[in-house]
């Protein structure tokens, strides 16, 4: 309260500016990792996890049963609306479509994930479509 009074009276502008820049720096520091945050998606039957790295534009697919790992490159993220994010491959095809619905599910546990995801693997050894949950 005292600091606020001082600023309002213009008696301590350097401290006010320092505080403002400090707050802005804090926001930027916190925001930077968020913008490059890896999106982790959980699927079951088959038991698979995917990890999207927006900085590297890679989608890493891990098959839990046989420990196979595949990395798909050139995957871009496109914000379609306030709640829809699409991951597309180099051909422009939708690979994963995420909806920020807080109704995502791994299909087996009772946990609700922030994002519900529909994945189209385009792989003859996989189901045509898989639904899952992402964080």
């Amino acid at each position, binding site marked *: 309260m005292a600091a606020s009074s001082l600023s309002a009276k213009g008696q301590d502008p350097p401290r006010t500016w320092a505080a403002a820049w400090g707050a802005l720096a804090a926001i930027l520091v916190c925001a930077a990792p968020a913008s490059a945050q890896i999106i982790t998606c*959980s699927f079951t*039957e*088959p038991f698979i996890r995917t990890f999207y790295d927006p900085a590297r534009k890679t989608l890493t697919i891990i098959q839990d049963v046989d420990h196979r790992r595949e990395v798909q490159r050139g995957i871009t993220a496109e914000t379609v609306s306030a709640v829809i994010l699409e991951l597309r491959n180099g051909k422009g095809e939708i690979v994963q479509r995420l909806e920020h619905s807080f109704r995502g*599910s791994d299909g*087996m546990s009772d946990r609700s994930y922030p994002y519900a995801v529909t994945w189209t693997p385009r792989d003859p*050894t996989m*189901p045509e479509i898989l*639904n899952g949950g992402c964080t």
Partner: protein
Amino acid sequence: MVFSLTWLADTLRAANLPVEEVHGWKNRGVGGDVTSAKGVVCHHTAGPLAGNAPSLNVVIHGRPDLSGPLAQLLLARDGTYYVIAAGRANHAGPGKWHEVTSGNANFIGIEAENTGLAHGPKADPWPMVQMNAYRWGVAAILRKIGAGASMCCGHGEYALPKGRKNDPSFDMDQFRLDVDACMSILGIGKVNNPLLQRPAPTMPNQQYVNGGVIA
């Protein structure tokens, strides 16, 4: 902690089904117990094409983002039941079947080893011995808990929203008819040999494939 479903292994053995008890199964569960089992949810693993029970380790232990057990039972391709947990398992997720909305708390989960695919390089027709064990095992469990064949559902039937899951890949209406027939036989004590090498009584000379039954 010893959980409620400690009768699973004996019940399956009493139906003359091959059973392997996974070490520690009577003390294994996640999130509590299944104190009042109301039915069975049938699953397929959608796992690898090769091997008898390649998904067993994942179904027992889960993975970093999904705690195991992921079913109480795993049915291997040779018809063996691996008994994994006597407590609750993460197998059902959100859904509804006959007004039951808490599948993990109320249903026993059976994961059957199958890719779930009808076409392509991982096409995986259900072996007769495995399907027979599936029918007889479900029948024995339902009889034990005092439920009818209608309380056996597929994961795809249970899961909401509709279409979220598609397992198991066979026709569940036909499966329930087969289970009902098995329960009738179990009920009148004709289970000295559960016909493991023969088809279920309602469908002689037929074989299950993904998506249905062929003659």
